[in-house]
């Protein structure tokens, strides 16, 4: 019983925000359907999970949206060999690229923001080359039909995304390699001194990040049957918003896949609801931006209050 309560207090802020968002969407727009809205943006959830993993490890992967676009382009180009095969090849290639990126960051000891902003441009360029500079599409229109089935109430897409989130959640909290990422994110010098291998951590974190980006981008392209060289750019800001709104800490070491799921639910309900009401895409960008700023500010002030409370308590202890 107490574990259930601690679970609720841990995610209280996000649960309240999610409830408010859902209720206000239903109030403003009675035909609103939560399931439909979440369904449309599932690739975003996977991308947010990837960003969360690097944030937990105390790093930042700005190249993830480019990686998603590259995977999308590869999927479409290779679709002649069967869509699933193409998807798997694209994901494997991007994961390798991500692991290489993590290895380079660890070996060079370079700031990951700087390195990934370079690779952001580089991988986007690769995507242009793969696409041949044009928006491309799959010739066989029926190829993406396999994604439109329905098992119980879940689509193949949401099953895939859920499996990925659960697998990542188990990996992060139950395995040694996953826990090492938390250690590297929350107290890096201490973790390294205690024998946590820094390079392996970076390779794993950026490998997972790239794989998630690739799954998100690949699925988007497989579903729509098309890819564009400049596509999916907004996934970076939406993904960061989802991860941070969900409560993953940008300072590293804090956050779970439940946070990602909640953040994703908030952002997707919000933008799908706005789109359903007939608002243009830029309105949802505007609202997402406001949400992102509001949540980082809220987190900052809550941390400040907590610090203040701690200090007062210590003072009282000292006086007693």
């Amino acid at each position, binding site marked *: 019983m107490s574990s259930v309560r601690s679970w609720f207090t841990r995610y209280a802020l996000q649960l309240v925000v999610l409830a408010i968002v859902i209720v206000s969407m239903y109030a403003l727009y009675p035909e609103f359907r939560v399931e439909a809205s979440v369904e449309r943006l599932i690739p975003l959830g996977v991308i947010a999970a990837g960003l969360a993993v690097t944030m937990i490890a105390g790093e930042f992967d700005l190249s993830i949206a480019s990686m998603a676009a590259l995977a999308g382009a590869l999927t479409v180009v290779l679709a002649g060999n069967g869509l699933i095969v193409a998807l798997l090849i694209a994901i494997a290639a991007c994961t390798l690229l991500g692991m290489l990126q993590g290895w380079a960051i660890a070996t060079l000891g*370079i700031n990951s923001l*700087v390195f990934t*902003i370079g690779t952001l*441009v580089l991988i*986007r360029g690769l995507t242009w080359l793969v696409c041949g500079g044009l928006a491309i599409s799959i010739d066989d229109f029926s190829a993406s039909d396999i994604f439109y089935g329905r098992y119980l109430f879940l689509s193949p897409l949401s099953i895939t995304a859920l499996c990925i989130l659960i697998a990542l959640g188990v990996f992060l909290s139950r395995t040694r390699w996953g826990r090492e990422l938390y250690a590297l994110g929350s107290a890096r010098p201490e973790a390294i001194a205690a024998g946590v291998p820094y390079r392996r951590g970076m390779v794993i974190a950026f490998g997972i990040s790239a794989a998630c980006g690739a799954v998100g981008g690949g699925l988007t392209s497989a579903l729509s049957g098309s890819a564009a060289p400049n596509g999916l750019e907004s996934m970076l800001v939406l993904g960061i918003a989802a991860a*941070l709104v969900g409560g993953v800490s940008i300072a590293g070491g804090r956050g779970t896949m439940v946070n990602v799921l909640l953040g994703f639910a908030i952002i997707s309900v919000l933008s799908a609801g706005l789109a359903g009401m007939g608002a243009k895409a830029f309105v949802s960008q505007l609202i997402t*931006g406001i949400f*992102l700023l509001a949540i980082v500010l809220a987190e900052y002030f809550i941390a400040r209050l907590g610090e203040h409370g701690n200090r007062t308590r210590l003072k009282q202890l000292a006086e007693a």
Partner: protein
Amino acid sequence: MTTIQGSTIGFQDRAGYRRTMNGIRNSTLPILIVLVFIVASISVPQFFTFETVRAILLATSITGIMAAGMTALTLSGNLFSLGVTASVVLSGVLYLRTANATGSIFLGALVAILAALVLGLGQGFIVGLGLNPVVVTLGAGAVIYGSTAMITGGEVVAAGSRDAGRFATFAVAGIPLPVLMLVAFTAVAWFLTERTTIGRDVHLVGWNKDTARNSGISFMATTIWAFLIFSVGIGIAAVLQVSQTLQVQADNFPEITMNVVAAVLIGGTAVTGGDGSPIKSVIGALFIATTTQIMVLAGVEQGMRYFVLGVVVVVLVITLHLLRRAGSR
């Protein structure tokens, strides 16, 4: 860079080694630019024409002004802004609207720069609280983009008359105004960051935030100053950019943010803060503009240009990082 590690035996040697490494680091980019010019003038026949050089300088001036401004931000340890494009577009829209409404391009430019300053002030304040600058500017960029699209209804804002383009076409003794503005703004940014108390604070905060704070330097005030210097650059660059295109739409100029960040990074300003100069960033912008222009002349396609730019940024960033590490040993 001044930390002395290990014993002082062979200190003279090491100091010499450090100087050499830092010398190599500071001269890498100028040498590369000269090399690129030499290679280009041999392999691309129409390279050294008036038109080409003018195009390179014009492209450099707009990116360069913003890169010089962003250097103040990077120097203060606040990394870089990922919301440049959104601010440029909003300032550009306000410039055209005001110029169309009042008929005065100077009033338009004033409104554009003031708008950029207000946006910078807001972002500077939030970052000054101690929040991550990349996330804040990314979020603010989304908000500004959304607001601009709402103000314009997603439509194209066009200049009422050719007069609005006078800032781009005006020239003194054959030198276009944007290039003069680049020189003037870089000089001001250099003076502010190197020769004033504000600049000293910016360097110190970037070098070691905690020590600076303990010495009584306000992180908040310094960060806001850095954002304000940057924002003036954004305002000026927006006016010059829109004066060239004579129209602007909410989703225009998506490449600006990356070009400016790339110019600062390959210019050699340390992203950890405290070390660098606006002049270096302008040289970075010149390098990007030159390579892009050469590829355009050589008929390289856009995808390939983007890819080459990415490779150049990654390779230079790694090289500069390794040289800096060698220089601080």
